[in-house]
C-alpha cells in the first residue's frame, strides 16, 4: 500500500500540516504536496473510474499527463470538474470528489460495462443500435450519454475572475527545468528581453530527482544560483505556475498562469492568460514517460516509473512496499534504486532487453535487486489494486513462468519528448529509431511572419535525454535563436552536467512480443478512454488505416490527456498491424492547448458589465432614470418606450404616439450617424455613393438619400445637409455610422485616392434631439434665441445658431410626418438641452418617446426603415424608390448591378400598403402571403411577405407594409396571409401611405 515515508520529500514541509477531504473523508497532507501525493500518502490507491468500462483507476503519473486521477474540486461557484490531482497543489480545506462512479467509487454500478467489454470492442456502436429507428435517440443514446462524460457539470455562475496580459519579448522560454534556465541565462546575459514560463511551482525540472550533477555539484545548487542571477536581471521575467499553452502564427503564444488555484483565499484573478508575441520561442519542455503495454496495465498501482520516483523523492511518499519494475531502458532503474534507498523493496526488475549491462542496471544488481533480462509481465494480478504479477519471456506469447507478489508495478517504455508547442503551428517531426521517439525536425520548423522558423526546441524536448547533452543542447539552441534575432552572444560560461550514462533503449511496443489476442484485450493503451491493443488492431483489420481513422474509430488519444501517454504506443501498434514503419503511419495533429485551460481564462475580464461595451448617448442616464425600456440597436441602447407605473409596454407606446401626434414629443436621436464630407470633389463623391444626385443640393438645404452596395442592394439611408459649398453632413442609420464612414474611406483610400475629399465621423460630437408634434415650434420658441418659423426654417432646411443659450443646429426634417425639428447640440450640452425642452414643454404635456413609437409613426406615413423593409436582398426599385434614383448620373455604386436580369425582373416583389379586412387584426411579424397554389416541390407558393406591421392608434386600425409580387399593379386586391396557427388573414393591397399623404402636417 502507498504510504508516507518517515523521511525525505524535497518539496514538502513536514512542519506544516494541511487538512483536506476526498469523497467526504477527512485527510491530512503537508504543505508542498499535490493532491495526488497526499492521496497516495493516505493510502488512497483507487481514485476514479474509466470512461467506457468504468474500470477502477489509480494514479499513474505525477504531472499534467495524468489520465486517471481526475476529481471534482470545490463547491458551488468554485466547483470545477476534471481537475488533475497530480497538478493540484494541496491547500487547507481542499475538497475533492471522485468522478464517473455511482453510487460510490468502490461500488460503481457502471462497472457492469466491464463484464460486457468483450461485446464492446472499438466502434461497436457503429454496428448496432440501429433498430428500431427511434431507439437511438430514446433508448441507446441516453444510456450511453449517462455512462459517458466524466465530472459533473458545474451548475452555478463562476465566482472567480480572470484576465489577460499582453507581453512582447525577444525570447519566450517555455519550461523552467535546468535546460530552460540555462537558456534563460544565455539570453538574459546578452540583454535580450526574456520571459520564462514554468508550469509547476518549482524550478529545475527533473534534474534533482534524477541525481544530476551540474559542475560536479548537486543540481539544486546550480538551480538556486541560476534563479538568483536571473531574478537580478531587469530584462528577464520568470513566471512559475504558468504553462506554455499554445503556439500560434507569427510568433504568438499563450501562457496560462494560475494565480489563486493553490490558495483560494487569496484575492485577485484566478487565471491570467498571457498573450505573448515573441521573436523566438524556445521550448525546453522535457519529456513524458511512456507506459508499457502488458495485460492488466490499467489496474490501480500500476504506475510510471518516473512518477514512482517523483513521489518518493519529491514528496516522501511510497507508492507501495514491494515493487516490480518493468522496463526497456536504463533510466527506469533509477526508480528501483530510489525505492531501495527509501527502505522499500523491489521484488524484481523485468527488463525486456536481453543484454543489460549499463551502469545503472549494474548498480541495481550491486544493491541486490533481482534483475531479469529478456523478461516481461504476462499479466498483472488484482482488480481494484495490484497484488502481484505473473512473468513471462518477452520473446514469447505470454506463458506465465512465475508469479511475483507486489503492491506496485512501475513501468517505463522510454520517454517521449514533449513536442506539442513545436507542432501546434506546423513544426514537423522525425522518427528517431535509435531512441524510439519522435523529435523535432530542425529543417521543418513552424514559420513566422518573415518566413523563418520561430520555434526552437532545446534539451530533453529536443530528444537529448541524457543530462549531459540536454543542457548543452538548450544553450546552443538558444544561442542560435539569439543570433537569428540580431544578438551576438559571447562565449558561454562552461557548464558540465553529469548523470550515470545510459545504454540504448529497445523498442518494446507490447509485452510480451507475441501476446495472444486474449491478453491484447486486457492491455490498455488509453487508460481514460479504455482503448486496448486489441481495439487498435481491430481498427486496422477493418480498414481504418489512417492514423486519424484509427484515432477516431477507437477514441485513442481523445481523452482529456489528449494521448500524452497513449499516442506513441498506439501508433506503434497500428504500424505493426499494418506492417508499416512508424514514420509512415505518422502522428495525429497536435492541437492547442498543451493541457486543458479554463474557459474563464479565454474570456478574461470580458464578463458581466465588461462583456461588451454598450454605447451610451448623452441622454442615456436620464432615459434609464425615467422608465426607459431599452433595446439594443447596434451597440447602442435605445428606449423602446418609456413605461409609467402600472402601464404595459403596448399602452406606453400608444400613449407616446397619440401625445406626439396631438401635441409634442421628444426623441433622443443622438445615435444617428453623422459624417462630414468635405472637399472640392465632395459633391462628385456623394453622387457616386448615393443613388440620388447630391452635388446640386443647395447650401442650407437637406435631402433624403439612399445608398446601395455595388451588388445593388440597399444598405443605408439618411438625410444629407449641405453645410457650405464644399461641405456636406451625411446622416446615417444608428447602426450605420461606423460602417458607412468606413465605406466612404475605403473608396477614398483604395479607389479614388486622387479625389480631393476628406471625411470625419462626428456622430458622437452631437446630441441630436428631435422635438416632434404640432406644438414643437412653440416649445422651441419658448426657449428662444432663434427664429424657427416656417419662413426662417422651412421644411428640409437647417440653420445654425443658439437655442436657449446652447449652440444648436436644428434640421427641419421629419420621420414621423409631423412638424419636427431635429436639433444637434454639442454632446456635452445634450442633457442640458433635453432638460430645457422637457421644462419648456410642460404646458403642452411634452413626453419623451421611444423607438417603437418612432416605428409606428413612420409606418403610418409609409416611410421605409432600413432593416425592416430591407434585409440585404432588397433594391430601391423594390420599394418604389425610383424617384430617389438619379437618371442624370453616369454612374453610382450599385447602378450597373440593377441592370442584371434578376434585378430587372418585373415579377420581383414590390412594396405596397396592406390593410387587413378586419381592422382589429394585425398581421403577425414575418408572415408570408400565399395564392393557394402549390409549387412542384410541394412548397405552398409564396407571393410576398409583410415587412412592417403595427396597430396604428392614430388611425385606430391595423396597418402594414409588405413586398408583394406585382404588388403596385394589384391595388385593391385581397390576398391571404396564413398564420402559424393555421388561420388565414384576408388583406387588401393599398397605398403604403396611411396618414396625411399630402404632407400637410409636416409642412406647417
Amino acid at each position: 500500500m502507498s504510504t508516507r515515508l518517515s523521511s525525505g520529500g524535497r518539496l514538502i514541509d513536514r512542519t506544516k500540516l494541511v487538512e483536506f477531504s476526498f469523497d467526504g473523508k477527512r485527510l491530512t497532507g503537508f504543505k508542498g504536496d499535490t493532491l495526488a501525493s497526499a492521496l497516495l500518502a493516505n493510502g488512497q490507491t483507487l481514485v476514479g473510474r474509466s470512461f467506457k468500462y468504468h474500470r477502477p483507476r489509480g494514479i499513474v503519473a505525477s504531472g499534467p499527463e495524468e489520465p486517471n486521477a481526475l476529481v471534482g474540486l470545490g463547491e458551488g461557484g468554485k466547483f470545477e470538474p476534471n481537475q488533475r490531482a497530480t497538478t493540484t497543489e494541496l491547500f487547507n480545506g481542499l475538497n475533492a470528489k471522485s468522478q464517473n462512479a455511482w453510487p460510490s467509487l468502490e461500488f460503481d454500478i457502471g462497472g457492469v460495462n466491464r463484464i460486457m467489454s468483450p461485446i464492446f470492442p472499438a466502434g461497436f456502436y457503429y454496428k448496432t443500435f440501429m433498430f428500431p429507428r427511434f431507439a437511438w435517440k430514446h433508448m441507446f443514446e441516453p444510456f450511453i450519454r449517462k455512462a459517458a462524460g466524466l465530472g459533473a457539470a458545474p451548475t452555478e455562475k463562476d465566482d472567480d475572475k480572470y484576465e489577460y496580459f499582453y507581453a512582447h519579448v525577444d525570447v519566450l522560454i517555455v519550461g523552467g527545468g535546468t535546460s530552460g534556465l540555462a537558456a534563460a541565462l544565455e539570453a538574459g546575459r546578452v540583454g535580450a528581453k526574456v520571459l520564462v514560463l514554468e508550469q509547476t511551482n518549482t524550478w529545475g525540472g527533473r534534474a534533482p530527482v534524477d541525481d544530476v550533477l551540474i559542475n560536479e555539484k548537486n543540481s539544486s545548487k546550480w538551480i538556486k544560483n541560476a534563479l538568483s542571477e536571473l531574478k537580478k536581471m531587469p530584462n528577464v521575467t520568470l513566471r512559475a505556475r504558468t504553462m506554455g499553452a499554445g503556439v500560434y502564427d507569427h510568433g504568438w503564444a499563450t501562457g496560462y498562469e494560475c494565480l489563486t488555484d493553490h490558495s483560494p483565499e487569496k484575492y485577485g484573478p484566478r487565471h491570467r492568460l498571457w498573450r505573448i508575441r515573441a521573436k523566438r520561442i524556445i521550448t525546453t519542455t522535457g519529456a513524458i514517460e511512456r507506459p508499457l503495454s502488458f495485460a492488466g496495465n490499467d489496474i490501480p498501482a500500476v504506475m510510471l516509473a518516473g512518477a514512482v520516483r517523483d513521489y518518493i523523492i519529491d514528496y516522501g511518499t511510497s507508492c507501495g512496499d514491494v515493487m516490480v519494475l518493468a522496463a526497456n531502458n536504463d533510466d527506469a532503474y533509477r526508480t528501483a534504486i530510489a525505492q531501495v534507498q527509501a527502505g522499500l523493496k523491489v521484488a524484481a526488475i523485468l527488463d525486456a532487453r536481453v543484454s543489460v549491462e549499463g551502469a545503472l542496471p549494474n548498480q541495481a544488481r550491486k544493491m541486490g535487486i533481482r534483475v531479469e533480462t529478456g523478461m516481461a509481465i504476462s499479466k498483472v494480478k488484482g482488480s481494484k489494486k495490484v497484488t502481484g504479477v505473473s512473468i513471462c519471456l518477452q520473446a514469447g506469447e505470454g506463458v506465465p513462468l512465475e508469479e511475483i507478489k507486489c503492491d506496485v508495478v512501475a513501468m517505463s517504455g522510454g520517454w517521449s519528448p514533449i513536442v506539442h508547442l513545436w507542432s501546434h503551428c506546423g513544426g514537423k517531426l522525425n522518427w528517431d529509431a535509435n531512441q524510439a521517439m519522435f523529435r523535432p525536425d530542425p529543417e521543418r520548423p513552424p514559420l513566422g511572419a518573415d518566413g523563418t522558423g520561430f520555434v526552437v526546441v532545446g534539451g530533453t524536448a529536443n530528444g537529448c535525454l541524457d543530462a549531459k547533452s540536454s543542457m548543452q543542447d538548450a544553450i546552443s539552441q538558444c544561442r542560435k535563436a539569439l543570433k537569428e534575432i540580431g544578438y551576438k552572444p559571447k562565449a558561454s560560461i562552461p557548464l558540465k552536467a553529469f548523470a550515470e550514462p545510459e545504454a540504448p533503449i529497445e523498442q518494446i511496443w507490447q509485452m510480451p512480443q507475441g501476446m495472444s489476442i486474449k491478453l491484447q484485450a486486457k492491455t490498455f493503451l488509453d487508460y481514460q478512454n479504455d482503448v486496448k491493443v486489441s481495439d487498435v488492431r481491430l481498427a486496422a483489420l477493418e480498414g481504418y488505416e489512417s492514423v486519424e481513422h484509427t484515432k477516431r474509430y477507437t477514441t485513442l488519444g481523445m481523452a482529456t490527456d489528449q494521448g500524452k501517454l497513449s499516442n506513441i504506443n498506439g501508433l506503434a501498434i497500428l504500424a505493426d498491424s499494418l506492417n508499416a514503419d512508424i514514420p509512415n503511419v505518422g502522428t495525429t495533429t497536435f492541437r492547442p492547448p498543451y493541457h486543458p485551460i479554463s474557459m474563464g481564462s479565454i474570456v478574461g475580464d470580458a464578463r458581466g458589465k465588461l462583456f461588451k461595451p454598450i454605447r451610451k448617448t448623452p441622454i442615456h442616464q436620464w432615459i434609464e432614470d425615467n422608465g426607459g425600456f431599452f433595446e439594443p440597436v447596434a451597440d447602442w441602447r435605445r428606449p423602446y418606450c418609456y413605461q409609467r407605473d402600472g402601464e404595459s409596454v403596448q399602452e406606453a407606446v400608444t400613449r407616446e404616439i397619440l401625445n406626439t401626434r396631438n401635441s409634442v414629443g421628444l426623441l433622443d436621436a443622438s445615435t444617428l450617424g453623422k459624417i462630414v464630407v468635405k472637399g472640392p470633389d465632395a459633391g462628385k463623391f456623394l453622387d457616386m455613393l448615393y443613388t440620388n444626385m447630391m452635388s446640386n443640393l443647395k447650401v442650407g438645404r437637406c435631402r433624403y438619400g439612399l445608398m446601395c452596395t455595388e451588388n445593388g442592394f440597399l444598405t443605408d439611408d439618411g438625410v444629407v445637409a449641405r453645410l457650405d459649398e464644399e461641405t456636406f453632413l451625411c446622416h446615417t442609420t444608428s447602426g450605420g455610422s461606423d460602417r458607412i464612414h468606413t465605406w466612404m474611406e475605403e473608396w477614398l483610400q483604395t479607389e479614388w485616392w486622387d479625389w480631393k475629399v476628406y471625411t470625419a465621423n462626428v456622430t458622437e460630437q452631437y446630441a441630436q434631439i428631435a422635438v416632434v408634434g404640432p406644438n414643437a415650434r412653440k416649445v422651441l420658441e419658448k426657449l428662444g434665441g432663434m427664429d424657427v418659423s416656417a419662413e426662417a426654417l422651412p421644411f428640409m432646411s437647417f440653420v445654425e445658431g443658439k437655442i436657449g443659450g446652447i449652440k444648436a443646429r436644428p434640421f427641419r426634417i421629419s420621420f414621423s410626418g409631423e412638424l419636427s425639428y431635429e436639433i444637434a447640440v454639442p454632446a456635452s450640452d445634450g442633457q442640458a438641452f433635453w432638460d430645457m425642452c422637457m421644462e419648456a414643454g410642460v404646458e403642452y404635456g411634452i413626453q419623451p418617446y421611444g423607438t417603437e413609437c418612432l416605428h409606428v409613426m413612420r409606418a403610418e406615413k409609409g416611410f421605409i426603415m432600413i432593416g425592416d423593409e430591407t434585409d440585404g436582398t432588397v433594391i430601391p426599385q423594390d420599394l418604389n424608390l425610383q424617384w430617389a434614383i438619379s437618371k442624370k448620373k453616369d454612374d453610382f455604386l450599385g447602378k450597373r448591378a440593377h441592370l442584371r436580369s434578376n434585378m430587372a425582373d418585373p415579377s420581383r416583389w414590390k412594396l405596397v400598403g396592406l390593410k387587413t379586412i378586419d381592422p382589429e387584426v394585425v398581421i403577425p411579424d414575418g408572415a408570408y402571403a400565399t395564392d393557394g397554389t402549390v409549387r412542384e416541390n410541394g412548397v405552398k407558393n409564396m407571393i410576398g411577405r409583410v415587412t412592417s406591421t403595427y396597430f396604428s392608434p392614430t388611425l385606430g386600425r391595423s396597418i402594414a407594409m409588405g413586398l408583394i409580387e406585382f404588388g403596385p399593379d394589384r391595388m385593391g386586391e385581397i390576398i391571404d396571409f396564413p398564420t402559424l396557427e393555421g388561420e388565414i388573414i384576408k388583406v387588401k393591397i393599398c397605398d403604403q401611405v396611411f396618414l396625411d399623404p399630402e404632407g400637410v402636417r409636416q409642412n406647417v
Partner: protein
Amino acid sequence: MLNFRCPNCEITADETDLHCDGQAHIERFGAGASDDDLETYLFMRHNPKGVHFERWRHVFGCGKWFNAARCTVTLEVFGTYSAQSLVPPKSLINKIKKKRPEWEGFVK
C-alpha cells in the same frame, strides 16, 4: 495571430488591431460594364494556395488601408505597401520571386 507592419504609421500591429478586406487591386466595373466583367468584379476572387495580395485596414490604429502580400499556406508576409497603388511594387514582386521561384507572378 498575424502581425503586420502598417506602412502608414509604421507600427507593427497585431491582427486584432487590423481588419482584412480581401483581395487587393480589384478593378472596378461600373455603369456600362459587361455581365462578365461585373461578375468578375463582384465575385471572382483570387483564392490561391500561396502568394496572395490583399487589403488590410489598420482599423484600431491610424485607420488607413494598406496592401499586403501574404502566403495563404505558410502565412508568411512578404511585405506591405501603400493601398494607393494599382499594382504591387516591383521590388516586392522581385523579393517574392526570389523566395518562391515557382510563383507565377502577379496576376491582376
